[in-house]
């Protein structure tokens, strides 16, 4: 089903609800990871990575803004309030993006694994029946290419270097893996999301595409495949999160809460 704009989407309440829940997932994934990226400013192991992570943070937050704007058009309220004013229980990001940054190698592993998923998801969304989303996906995917390229280069480099670099990368992957499965889910609206052709590809097919891309790169990085990622007990897509997100939201919303009505 092709839906041209927000006005048309608002004409069908079931469609609107399924669409908004999904847009929260997309927006919150990018905003939360973008915030984690920004935390590397001044802390990354080399200056070039300070620059890279700041630039990537700006892209991710910009992409989140695009999705929050779509939500605003669907009657969900002001984009700024959606980004900064919602509590942890209302957030729909995957658990893996809210984890504290931890080790640099873990950050690289998380970003690489996320970027491949984001690419697979955006490739599917280019054909979304919700036209504004399809248009945004076509644009965003061209920018994401550089993130993927950067992270894959580091991922291979750390693995191939062996020694401490590889050990730390392996440790990062082990830490991420139990939470990773949540990333590939779409919450309780999944079936309707596909039925309404907002997401025009079966989620199982998307996961398979992700694994097909990640496995050869892990092999090239001389890493063992840890098996299909597990599903954590909590589901970020259902609003069930860890303490790490509460802390992130506290820090991110500190200025906003001083004067929520301020114009920037």
């Amino acid at each position: 089903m092709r839906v041209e704009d927000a006005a048309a989407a608002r004409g069908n309440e079931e469609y609107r609800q399924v669409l908004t829940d999904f847009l929260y997932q997309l927006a919150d994934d990018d905003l939360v990871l973008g915030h984690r990226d920004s935390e590397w400013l001044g802390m990354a192991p080399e200056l070039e990575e300070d620059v890279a992570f700041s630039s990537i943070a700006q892209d991710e937050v910009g992409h989140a803004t695009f999705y929050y704007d779509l939500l605003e058009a669907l009657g969900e309220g002001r984009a700024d309030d959606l980004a900064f004013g919602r509590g942890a229980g209302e957030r729909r990001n995957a658990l893996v993006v809210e984890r504290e940054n931890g080790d640099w190698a873990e950050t690289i592993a998380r970003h690489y694994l996320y970027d491949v998923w984001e690419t697979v998801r955006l490739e599917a969304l280019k054909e979304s029946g919700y036209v504004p989303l399809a248009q945004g996906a076509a644009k965003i995917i061209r920018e994401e290419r550089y993130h993927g390229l950067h992270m894959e280069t580091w991922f291979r480099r750390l693995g191939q270097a062996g020694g401490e670099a590889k050990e730390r990368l392996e440790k990062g992957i082990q830490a991420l893996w139990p939470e990773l499965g949540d990333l590939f889910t779409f919450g309780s609206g999944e079936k309707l999301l596909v039925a309404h052709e907002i997401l025009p590809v079966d989620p199982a097919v998307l996961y398979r595409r992700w694994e097909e891309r990640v496995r050869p790169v892990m092999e090239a990085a001389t890493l063992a495949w840890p098996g299909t990622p597990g599903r954590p007990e909590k589901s970020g897509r259902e609003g069930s999160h860890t303490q790490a997100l509460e802390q992130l939201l506290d820090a991110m919303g500190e200025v906003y809460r001083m004067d929520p009505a301020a114009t920037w």
Partner: protein
Amino acid sequence: MIQEKELLVRQALNEVKDPEIPTLSIVELGMVYSVEAGEEEVRVRLMPTFVGCPALDIIRRDVENKVQSATGIPVKVEYVLDEPWTTERITPEGREHLASFGIAPPMAEWWEKPPCPFCGAPETEVENLFGPTACRAIYYCTRCRQPFEGFKPV
């Protein structure tokens, strides 16, 4: 009459520069998607270069100010994604102006490295895919040993 007004709008748009690259106008960047100059309102539709570019709001304000003072009627500026903006939209003049600002113009493909804007040598390396703004990368010329910025192909 309306054609005349549209000409005024287009002239005014030529005066709006990219706040991050002041030698380059938004027309040369290929950001202008459409112009509709009506009797009571001018509607300008722009294509964002990068979705998260912080200059977009500044450009919107500059377009409103410049077009309104040129035509004397209210201006509505919209960003559209009807088709994705790509670096192929930058005009030949725009490429020259980028180079004169010290930024190598974008190559046709994302994996190609630009020649050095200072000495012209093709022997350049990627220093960092990310630079001072979302649209720029940092390269290094192995001949004249000069780091330089290049516009990323998207």
